[in-house]
């Protein structure tokens, strides 16, 4: 696809003849079986909405990391998008329009519906078999259980088959076009331009089966649109005006995609080569997949035999002067703990990415959680501190990678980055920066031996960083290892005073990151009743809740903490300015505990451990309670 919707296939701007109503924001959710192509439909709607100038946020809700028989509850895959004429911060708490391709999808998603929402179902799929698979005793379309919703029973399967009949596609392939039918219907409902998707179909399926697949998809899309236009059940369509985004070039990115771009950019800015060593694990695997495609950018990926090999390979690569990065999720991060202790001891730069998922153990492998914070901070033997960062949403993953590498190289330390399944898979429009906007990351390697005696691998600069001398440099031969070492020479030392000194030095060095990171910024009043202190992927829900609360006149502000270790310099001061500090977090209260331990500010957690992101409503409710003085936490 090109920069702008191209018109190299026959232009087909179709215009509705029914009335059109305006909406400021709409939440659409596609759901169906894993094989129903819901992610594809979602991605297309996202793209066309972005082109229409809306602000957007999306959240794919994958089934758990298991196979499930077709049509069962466990196999339901969902994709939610919010597009709006105003700033969008979350994929939305509640759904305005649900597309359910089968009974199981309806059953597992009905709880998301806003009162009065539009529910589009494939009527053909609500047969006995489908209902039984979903565990319905009666047909929900008929037993009145959907009262209060605007239900559209579209015979998606049969109409799709009809539409694609002439392409000569087999039954299976024909049925695979159902998602395009549904998409066409949604396009009609929200007045979307179909051209970009038609182009995309062309680009993706092109000549497959002699063009029949592309033709089928195209026809299904059009048939869906036409169905919307003709069915009497739909009286009007809706239009969501373009939002006012800061000018610039945009693209839609998931967190994992942004993270990959950030890594490549950081390498470029520091004149380094990315070495990414990892072992596949949901939801971090995509980082490996995306990077593996970027060989032309100099990226080298290494799928190791396990997580321990991947992090130790990074240690080797970092010793060799590369930009070493490893990524995993909770169970794999736990396995890396011992080696990360070595990395701390060696004082080599490295980025460690933890895309958090539901735990403990195998847990809920596809679901978001923020339960690895304490693991990231303290999950190593001995006193082994390292900086910890958490991106505040998909786009921020880009900047976080650059920042992580800046800190890692400036301080010679591994840096941990905490993403999560929600951030990693969620997408939002991202303004593409010019290279000139990005600050270079100066990295130097000593090249000649000191004049005044032997090279000291553990000598330190004003930030307490040691020199990054790499093999291949004559005269700087040295040996490092995991035993305690004398500051300066790096020779093994069991001297008690030196051990205390080194322990303190490693801690102070990490604290020095405070000088490299920005102050904590507050959105809203400088003092007040409540400060909502979010971290990581909760950004959108926190901000939106605070925005709403402020329109209600509540005295509440929001700050999103991207730097979990060390905290920004001004953090204690800021927290002290509010009667309550509320920390919404997808764990049992980990950040609030660290805040109480470190800053002695009585922060309180709004805790949720359900494998789901926060809704705006949940946070808002708590804000209201706190402002009303009900402090029952």
């Amino acid at each position, binding site marked *: 696809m090109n920069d702008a919707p191209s018109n190299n296939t026959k232009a087909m701007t179709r215009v509705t003849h029914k009335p059109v109503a305006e909406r400021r924001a709409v939440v659409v959710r596609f759901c169906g079986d894993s094989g129903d192509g819901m992610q594809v439909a979602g991605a297309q709607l996202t793209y066309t909405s972005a082109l229409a100038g809306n602000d957007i946020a999306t959240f794919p809700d994958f089934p758990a990391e298991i196979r499930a028989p077709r049509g069962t509850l466990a196999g339901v895959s969902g994709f939610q998008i919010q597009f709006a004429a105003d700033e969008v911060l979350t994929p939305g708490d509640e759904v305005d329009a649900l597309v359910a391709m089968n009974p199981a999808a309806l059953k597992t998603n009905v709880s998301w519906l806003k009162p009065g929402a539009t529910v589009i179902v494939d009527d053909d799929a609500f047969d006995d078999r489908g209902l039984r698979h979903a565990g319905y005793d009666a047909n929900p379309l008929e037993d009145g259980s959907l009262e209060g919703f605007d239900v559209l029973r579209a015979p998606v399967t049969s109409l799709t088959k009809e539409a694609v009949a002439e392409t000569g596609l087999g039954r299976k392939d024909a049925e695979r076009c159902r998602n395009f039918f549904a998409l066409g219907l949604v396009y009609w409902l929200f007045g979307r331009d179909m051209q970009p998707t038609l182009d995309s179909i062309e680009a993706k399926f092109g000549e497959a089966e002699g063009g029949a697949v592309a033709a089928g998809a195209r026809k299904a899309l059009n048939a869906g649109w036409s169905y919307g236009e003709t069915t009497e059940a739909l009286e009007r369509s809706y239009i969501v005006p373009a939002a006012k985004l800061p000018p610039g*070039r945009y693209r839609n990115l998931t967190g994992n995609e942004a993270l990959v771009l950030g890594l490549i950019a950081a390498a470029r800015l520091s004149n380094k080569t990315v070495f990414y060593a990892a072992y596949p694990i949901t939801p971090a695997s995509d980082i490996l997949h995306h990077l593996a495609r970027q060989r032309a950018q100099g990226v080298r990926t290494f799928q*190791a035999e396990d997580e321990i090999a991947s992090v130790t*390979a990074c240690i*080797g690569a970092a010793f060799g002067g590369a930009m070493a990065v490893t990524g995993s999720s909770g169970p794999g991060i736990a396995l890396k703990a011992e080696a990360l202790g070595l990395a701390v001891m060696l004082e080599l730069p490295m980025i460690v990415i933890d895309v958090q998922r539901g735990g403990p153990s195998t847990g809920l492998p596809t679901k978001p959680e923020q339960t690895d914070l304490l693991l990231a901070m303290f999950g190593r033997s001995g006193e082994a501190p390292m900086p910890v960062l958490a991106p505040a949403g998909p786009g921020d993953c880009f900047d976080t990678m650059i920042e992580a590498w800046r800190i890692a190289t400036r301080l010679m330390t591994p840096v941990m980055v905490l993403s999560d399944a929600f951030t990693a898979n969620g997408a939002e429009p991202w303004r593409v920066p010019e*290279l000139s906007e990005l600050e270079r990351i100066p990295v130097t390697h000593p090249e000649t031996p000191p004049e005044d005696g032997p090279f000291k691998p553990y000598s330190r600069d004003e930030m307490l960083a040691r020199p990054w001398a790499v*093999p291949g440099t*004559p*005269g700087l031969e040295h040996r490092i290892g995991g035993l305690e070492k004398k500051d300066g020479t790096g020779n093994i030392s069991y001297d008690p005073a030196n051990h205390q000194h080194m322990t303190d030095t490693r801690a102070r060095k990490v604290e020095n990151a405070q000088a490299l990171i920005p102050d904590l910024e507050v959105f809203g009043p400088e003092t007040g009743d409540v400060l909502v202190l979010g971290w990581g992927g909760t950004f959108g829900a926190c901000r939106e809740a605070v925005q709403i609360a402020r329109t209600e006149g509540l005295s509440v502000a929001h700050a999103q903490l991207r730097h979990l270790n060390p905290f920004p310099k001004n953090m204690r001061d800021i927290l002290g300015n509010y009667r309550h500090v509320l920390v919404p977090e997808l764990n049992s209260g980990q950040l609030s505990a660290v805040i109480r331990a470190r800053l002695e500010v009585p922060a309180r957690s709004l805790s949720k451990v359900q494998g789901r992101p926060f809704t705006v409503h949940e946070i808002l409710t708590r804000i209201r309670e706190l402002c009303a003085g009900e402090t029952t936490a």
Partner: protein
Amino acid sequence: MNKPDIIPEPMPADYATDQEVRWCPGCGDFAVLNQMRKVLASIKAKRENTVFISGIGCASRFPYYLDTYGLHGIHGRAPAIATGLKRMRPELDVWVVTGDGDGLSIGVGHLVHALRRNVNVKILLFNNRVYGLTKGQFSPTSFPGQISRSTPFGSVLEPLNALTTAIAANASFVARAVDTQADTLSEVLHRAAAHKGSVFVEIYQNCHVFNDGVFEYAKDKKTRADHVVELADGQPMVFGANRDKGLRQKGFGLEVVSLGDGVTEGDLVVHDEQAAEPTLAHLLAAMRHPEMPEAIGVLRAVERPTQNELMGKGDAPMKTQEEADRDLETLLKGKDSWVVE
């Protein structure tokens, strides 16, 4: 330190650091270290381009005593550390030093995969059939009956064979040497240094404190010749103090025969380091004292593409800073961006 960078006629001592060597008196590690220094000098190894990587154990302290680059890692992970380094810095000569516990117990997974990938590093496994550093527990190469601190009534398990493990992992160079047998050790280390691809060398090493004498049959000058067969590529497998014994093929196996009485060298198996299938290497590796002589020298040395050759094909060519910047901008922009004005 700060010795001259290019050593015109390097001496073994040029590769020594100023750190005191900390092994027990009588430890076999000393002999290997001395030999290593000699070999480095002999091949005129550039100190700055040589890296020793180790795990944890007595043997793993090796890097501290060589004035090259060095990394004393964590237990069992040295092959993985080396794999990462070598992938990014193909021009370096990377050696790995490990022990029987480090390499075959906690670290056997990394060992197997480094060999399979044919990572161009030289792995030396010091086999003393015991955990030295942790003071004398049995190891995966200990023999049944070995009394150790964790087997006060004697170990009962069959050992893991370092060499057959390496061969099954498709190692392209497999050899065995004995700490104090300077000639074969030197030869093997020279060959190791020259080999392209992963090298796996098992070195029989005496732990004077916790497993003294376990390799005496292969070390003792008087008996050695009867208990080991020194391999020579293309040569029949003769051994014995009087060179009067040999190995002959029997079915899919090997048997010891005495020369004479109609048995001549021509009846013996001829060593072939490069055999297509590693069957002979497996058989040689499996020979166990006292039933059979043990094989010393290079069991297998074949050429196959290294990890770097295989993976390196896809590595991007060097770009100018401008080219690289431009490529990055293109990447950032992507294929489906749009402009808001």
